[in-house]
């Protein structure tokens, strides 16, 4: 990765469509924030500094947010050309984020229907019909997942990048952490749908630890079998297709493994494909509580 030079690395933090919560991970480093300058020279970080070098060039560029307008698509390509190591941070940048759900708008009026639902003057809105991960547009060298990212993973990535080694990030399932912590399974014991079996653990199994099911912030782990888990929700928890799709249609819904499950079960809430035989609005179809 970004080398062993004694010169501080030139670093940028930029955002596209997002909530700013992952950038906040840098400001949440606490005292480490004040030490970061030893290895990293932050030359562009709009949320934190007025001293701006938006055009780089960057040794390392951290990118938050998904690509949701033409201008953003052009901009990320420009940034890629000026960057050594490009790191995507958070669910929006790595898998599209919650706003990626708009890709299912075609089931119910298309993106125009979305714009009409929110804005009085639709002609002023410049948006793509999709909000997609950065890797759909340019090559990405490393990613930190999560909605939001985990500060400990950020520290690991910063440390590893500074000395040019590969970051050690967990690739095991949320389930593994629950077992290690000796927690009662929320799905087995209480019948709560939980995505833990197929989701990467970056959070120390946060939601099961709070007595609720995992909703997928860190995205599917390698070779996740979403369809099997969906079948389990249907057979053992008695969820109908709409409720299964709703459970999968969260903050990493657009990752291929989750997307396939949502598609096979008619789409996310409010954007469900009309049944072949009927013409009723999919958003009002009856479905069990998630």
């Amino acid at each position, binding site marked *: 990765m970004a080398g062993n030079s004694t010169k501080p690395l030139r670093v940028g933090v930029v955002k596209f469509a*997002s909530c700013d919560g992952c950038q906040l991970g840098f400001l949440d480093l606490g005292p480490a924030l004040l030490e970061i300058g030893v290895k990293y020279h932050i030359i562009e970080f709009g949320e934190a500094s007025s001293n701006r070098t938006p055009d780089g060039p960057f040794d390392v560029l951290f990118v938050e947010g998904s690509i949701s307008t033409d201008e953003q698509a052009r901009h990320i390509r420009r940034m890629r050309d000026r960057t050594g190591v490009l790191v995507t941070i958070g669910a929006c940048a790595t898998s599209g984020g919650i706003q990626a759900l708009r890709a299912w708008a075609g089931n119910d009026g298309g993106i125009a229907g979305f714009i009409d639902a*929110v804005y009085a003057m639709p002609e002023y809105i410049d948006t793509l019909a999709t909000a997609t991960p950065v890797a759909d547009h340019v090559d990405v060298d490393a990613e930190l997942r999560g909605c*939001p990212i985990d500060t400990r993973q950020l520290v690991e990535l910063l440390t590893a990048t500074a000395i040019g080694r590969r970051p050690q990030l967990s690739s095991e399932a949320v389930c593994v952490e629950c077992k290690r912590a000796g927690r009662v399974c929320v799905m087995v014991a209480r019948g709560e749908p939980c995505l833990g079996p197929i989701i990467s653990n970056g959070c120390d199994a946060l939601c099961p630890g709070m007595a609720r099911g995992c909703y997928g912030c860190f995205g599917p782990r390698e070779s996740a079998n979403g369809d099997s888990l969906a079948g389990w929700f249907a057979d053992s928890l008695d969820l109908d297709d709409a409720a299964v799709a709703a459970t999968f249609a969260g903050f990493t819904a657009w990752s291929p493994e989750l997307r396939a499950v949502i598609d096979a079960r008619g789409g996310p809430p*409010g954007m469900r494909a009309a049944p072949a035989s009927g013409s009723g609005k999919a958003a009002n179809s009856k479905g069990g509580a998630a």
Partner: protein
Amino acid sequence: MTRKKVAVEATIPEQRVFAVDSMSRVEGEGRLRVVVKGDEVVEAELSIFEAPRFFERLVVGRHPDQVIDMVARICGICPVAYQMTATEGFERLFGVELDANVRQLRRLFYWGEWLQSHALHIYLLHAPDFLGYDSALDMARDHRSIVERGLALKQVGVDIMALLGGRAVHPVGMRVGGFYRVPTRGQLRALLPALEVALEDSKETVRWTSSLELPEFERDPLMLSLYDAELYALDTGRLVTTEGIDVDPGDWDEAFSEQHVEHSTALQATSIDGKRHLLGPSSRVVLSGQGLHPLAKEALEASGGVEIIRRNMFASINARGIEMIHAAAEAIAIIEAYEPPADPFVSWEPRAGKASWATEAPRGVLFHRYDVDDEGRVVKARIVPPTSQNQAFMEDDMRGFAGSVLDLPEPEAAARLEALIRCYDPCISCATHFLRLEVERI
């Protein structure tokens, strides 16, 4: 390194344009622009190029507990504000009565977010303007202990949010009817030593901020906030304004409305009769200051009193500090009186209707309205963040303030205008329906 953000546009000779193409030290992406002809400010625009994310449409078809998780993602800095407003709107519609201790935990959760957000703004975003630095990191080279105090204050807020919500950004602890899990007395009391320090640090914050030199800029603003006769209004009471509006927080949309204003691509909120209001810490201290903790009232008096905060926008940094004193003091009182409830949440039955409420986000009044069907699923949503309610007022203030910086070189004038806008702590990521602006030339 260059300061590239300030663009001085080539214009006809007698017209000058002060523009900041990409604002810094605010949450989200925005630009501002003031056009001057001779000595007259002919245009003042604050515009937003945050890409639309369509939250109000995304929540359609969702059940209340999923809505709570989704709307948190509107803003990484104030997710609790979004969760709280939505949750309490649903609870009101469904007739949910919270256990008294759960009720207090809700306030504690919110005070944690206020501490985190106010410390972030005062120390990491705003103070560099007063002391002449580009960032808190630069400021730390000369004023390390001040920045460390800010980071410690922020951390206390983060710790409260993490205990009740699992984590500070997009917490997972709250649900309609209460919390998924509540802490033990011991877990809560473990926060007390840090909170006692935070209380002293907050007092020190106000002593420090009230010693900073404020730019001279006085006006007589209309203000809007929640008001509660018994408490420092957070998520209870009435919505009131300086000129006499007084409505239930769930009826924001009967007294205020959003308009699509020409030359601006944002939906700007005003009262029904078109009046523009200031909301946020300054307005709360003025309108509902009777509910402040005695220690906060004492600091307010020592800082020079409420009138400076009312008249000078730059004194909002004092108002935030005073609110941190209140937040820390009430947090301590809540923890000391806490008895764990029998159940972390009460069950509820959905019913069709309007689930609406307003609460005080760190930046000001936040309103949510969800029209739900008989299974509690959202049919239609409207979310009005504080920044879109403040936007019209911010533009008025830019217009009023611009006259005092006209003699400065353009980059310096633009930087002063940007510093004014930072006083509002604008949260542009929050602005769920700000629109992309195509700048219109005159």
